């Protein structure tokens, strides 16, 4: 693959696929013609919808909830007077009536009297004198506005009225009513002011003042329509990608070029990748075309404000949506390729795709509900997460963490889909070959792969990360339950996710279990035990200093001047029995994490690396992954955990490599965890020793020196006593290059 990239062949392959697609008239049709047709039509339809809802306000009656009859009479006068002023030339009288309980539009259970005014211009007003709290009536939608009028005396004989108006935010009907009422009041105010100026030359405050306060709108047409934009964009992007995806896979077969293609010595994945690039490019081009068309349409039809509120559809937010569409395209192109790779013909491919497209409409429509928001669990759901993210991006309510989750899980799904596509692509190149099917992807491989490959790792992570994510959110949801139970649940979940699942995956892919998760070989490392003990008991000092250091360089998001961020819940944790802490929070967690990070991840990487540089690259990369996983916490990124955990990962990775076993690492990791969680318990004792951990940033210098000394001696012991690499699972090192540098590098 590297050779293909270096020689430019892969690039030329991608160009060929893209050229083939873009010359095809049908691609151009979806790319250019569709957006040109769809958006004007769509905007007409939307305009109709919104105009209906707005113009119906003009014809229908605006209902104002009023606190008292006297206020109603003042409002009546205001309406009457302002209409007189506006239509001074053609004065028409109001039809004004006071009716008892004749408000068919109102909730019959509410006890109120109704007053109705009928004006010939703008809109009709209906007042409802409501005895229950006005705000409730407003929130429930019984009334469009609420009005309380208080009289103020200012100056000698002049009176002024304060209109306190309540309206529903982002509810077009209520906001319209507010605007109309404001117009009425302003008309009178301006008139009074000018009269006064004429008479006395004085400029005086207005007779009517107005305060408007909003309650959140419950069912606003705008908010739900805001999802229409991303939904349409996403669906159009899908449409754009569908044709090239079919054409470059099933079409290749139908044209009879697939067999010749498969017969070439090029790796199938490279072929698939070039096709992926082409489909992705067309999808992105479609996205850009649609985004542009939509932007122009919304901008010039004036629909943007109606859909997205006051800020409208800025060019900036349009540009911000594009990367989301790219991420989505990356995901959906891979799905399409995986599906089309099985199809033998165009028709078959279409038959597979239609249900998928219909299925993807489901979550799309779900996202139209304004109450559905991009939060933890929903952020993991494919398609809907991108639509919601785009909507929140447009309405300016996007939160960072769910956004990161949505993007990263979507990319994970793309990787899974590509992995599946790579297995399926070219399988039916030879017709009547009945040996392959969808099932063949799920089937265990026939030959024995000894160690996990990079491909295994990527596929596993792609499957695992969304599960992990949901799991920590579910666990975070258990806040209410007993702490003891929660700790055990957490331990069990960690064991399942980091130990059981990787083992099951390894079994399924026929990996060698003893080599992927090496446990034996105590004979080769028992001499290192004193060193391991020294490292285990002194490592917290090093970890603490790294934590302090990461705060110094700004890698911190929490208040963390405590050794373990669990300090907050310290009192609570004190109630846990010590053995629970050591077993559930130290040993089990250590076993699980070592099993995955130093077993599955590191062993696979080590198996493929040569020389000192390769080994260190493996150790460091696996440690970074280890560190990254620890930064993922429910609803926040615990960045400050990154450096200490990565350092711990490097250290234990090195130990695992030196000893060829996971056991020493598990031992060190358990002791380290255990100490961190036990220390707060003996705070008083520690303080006597000069260790007020939570009070000072740096440890006392004596402790740092002692800890480092202990730690270094431990490293040297491990370095000198372990016979690298005793176990067959480890590659031959270059002993001289490593033997000198290790201790210094780590200490």
């Amino acid at each position: 693959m590297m050779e293909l990239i270096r020689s430019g062949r892969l690039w030329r392959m991608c160009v060929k696929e893209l050229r083939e697609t873009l010359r095809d008239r049908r691609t151009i049709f979806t790319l250019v013609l569709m957006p040109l047709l769809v958006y004007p039509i769509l905007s007409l339809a939307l305009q109709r919808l919104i105009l209906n809802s707005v113009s119906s306000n003009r014809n229908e009656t605006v209902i104002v909830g009023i606190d008292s009859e006297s206020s109603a009479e003042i409002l009546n006068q205001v309406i009457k007077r302002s209409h007189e002023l506006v239509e001074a030339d053609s004065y028409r009288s109001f039809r004004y009536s006071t009716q008892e309980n004749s408000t068919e539009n109102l909730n019959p259970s509410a006890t109120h009297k109704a007053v109705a005014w009928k004006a010939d211009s703008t809109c009709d007003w209906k007042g409802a004198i409501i005895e229950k709290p006005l705000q409730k009536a407003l929130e429930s939608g019984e009334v469009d506005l609420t009005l309380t009028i208080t009289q103020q005396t200012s100056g000698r004989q002049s009176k002024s009225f304060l209109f306190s108006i309540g309206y529903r935010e982002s509810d077009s009907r209520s906001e319209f009513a507010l605007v109309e009422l404001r117009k009425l009041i302003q008309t009178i105010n301006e008139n009074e002011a000018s009269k006064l100026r004429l008479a006395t030359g004085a400029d005086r405050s207005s007779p009517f003042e107005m305060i408007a306060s909003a309650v959140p709108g419950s069912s606003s047409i705008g908010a739900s329509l805001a999802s229409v934009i991303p939904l349409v964009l996403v669906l159009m992007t899908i449409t754009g990608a569908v044709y090239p995806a079919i054409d470059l896979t099933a079409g290749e077969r139908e044209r009879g070029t697939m067999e010749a293609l498969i017969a070439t010595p090029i790796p199938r994945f490279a072929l698939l990748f070039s096709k992926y690039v082409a489909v992705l490019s067309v999808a992105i081009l479609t996205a850009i075309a649609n985004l542009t068309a939509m932007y122009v349409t919304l901008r010039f039809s004036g629909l943007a404000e109606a859909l997205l509120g006051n800020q409208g559809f800025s060019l900036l937010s349009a540009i911000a949506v594009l990367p989301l569409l790219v991420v989505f395209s990356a995901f959906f192109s891979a799905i399409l390729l995986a599906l089309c790779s099985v199809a033998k013909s165009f028709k078959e491919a279409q038959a597979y795709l239609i249900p998928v497209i219909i299925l993807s409409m489901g979550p799309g429509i779900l996202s139209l509900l304004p109450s559905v928001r991009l939060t933890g669990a929903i952020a993991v759901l494919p398609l809907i997460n991108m639509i919601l993210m785009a909507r929140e991006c447009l309405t300016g309510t996007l939160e960072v963490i769910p956004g990161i989750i949505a993007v990263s899980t979507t990319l994970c799904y793309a990787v899974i889909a590509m992995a599946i596509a790579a297995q399926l692509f070219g399988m039916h190149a030879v017709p009547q070959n009945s040996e392959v099917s969808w099932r063949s992807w799920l089937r265990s491989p026939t030959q024995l792969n000894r160690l996990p490959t990079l491909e295994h790792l990527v596929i596993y992570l792609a499957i695992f990360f969304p599960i992990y994510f949901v799991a920590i959110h579910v666990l975070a949801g258990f806040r209410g339950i007993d702490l003891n139970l929660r700790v055990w649940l957490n331990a069990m979940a960690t064991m399942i996710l980091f130990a059981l699942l990787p083992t099951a995956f390894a079994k399924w892919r026929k990996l060698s279990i003893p080599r992927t998760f090496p446990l034996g070989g105590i004979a080769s490392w028992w001499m290192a035990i004193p060193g391991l003990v020294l490292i285990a008991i002194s490592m917290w000092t090093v970890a603490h200093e790294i934590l302090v250091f990461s705060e110094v360089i700004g890698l911190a998001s929490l208040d963390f001047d405590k050794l373990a961020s669990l300090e907050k819940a310290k009192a609570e944790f004190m109630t846990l029995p010590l053995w629970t802490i050591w077993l559930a929070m130290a040993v089990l967690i250590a076993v699980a994490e070592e099993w995955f990070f130093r077993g599955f991840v590191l062993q696979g990487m080590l198996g493929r690396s040569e020389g000192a540089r390769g080994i260190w690259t493996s150790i460091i990369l696996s440690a970074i992954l280890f560190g990254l996983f620890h930064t993922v916490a429910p609803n926040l990124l615990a960045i400050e955990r990154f450096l200490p955990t990565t350092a711990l990962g490097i250290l234990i990775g090195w130990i695992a490599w030196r000893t060829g076993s996971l056991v020493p690492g598990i031992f060190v990791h358990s002791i380290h965890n255990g100490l961190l969680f036990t220390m707060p318990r003996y705070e008083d004792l520690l303080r006597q020793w000069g260790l007020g951990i939570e009070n000072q940033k740096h440890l006392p210098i004596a402790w740092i020196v002692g800890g480092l000394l202990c730690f270094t001696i431990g490293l040297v012991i491990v370095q000198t006593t372990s016979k690298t690499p005793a176990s067959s699972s480890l590659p031959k090192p270059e002993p001289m290059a490593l033997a000198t540098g290790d201790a210094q590098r780590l200490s």
Partner: protein
Amino acid sequence: MTTPMIIASELSKSFRTANGQPNQAVDHISFSVSAGEVYGLLGPNGAGKTTTLRMVMGLLTPDAGFATVDGARTDNKSVHKNQSSAVLSKLGMISTNDGVYPWLSVREMLSYFADLYGVPPALAQTRMAELAELLDIEKVLTQRCSTLSTGQKQRVTFARGLMHDPPVMLLDEPTRGLDVVGSRTVFKFIDLLRQRGKAILLSTHRLDEAERVCDRFGLLHKGTLRYEGTLDELRALSGQQHLVDMFIDLIDQRGAA
């Protein structure tokens, strides 16, 4: 005697039919082809010719037996990953079912395949010029493939299979759908390839043409190799003068049995 470029050893393959019954498409077939030799794999439709070629090619994994090309096995790709790609570069396959890319020009398509085989672009250009002259497709090089006639398409396919100058050619019914003149051009070209020392495995049902161009024959029927040898050997074996008659005998025998 030179070592054979292609060896098929006890190749077998069965497919499951629509109702789940196994169908023995190829049943323990063995033969070999040397450099500079044209081996005709002859047989009626459904005899197993294409399946045999695909197993030689490594596109199908045989149920039993194996095939080698220039000493390297072509089956079981994943085990011998690198070896397999080396084997594939030595093979050129041309089949009637082969299509062209309608939206690419002939030149683009040929360059693409040369690239897939790792032929350096400069070499690919000279080779393309040479092949275009030999196959008389110089004039259509810049045309879109969708505008080509059937005969032109077939010749472009030939050029495609030869862009990497493989020592071994597998030709699956290269004349199907071509008129007499077209077929003749193809067989002339096969003769030329033989002169250039390529080992050619040809499957066809154009028995008359095969008689002229092939050095040795394998007569396939219902997945088994009935007769094998040179034309003279076949005549002696079957007692018939022409391949056509041998065939009719063969089919009749089976029908009677």
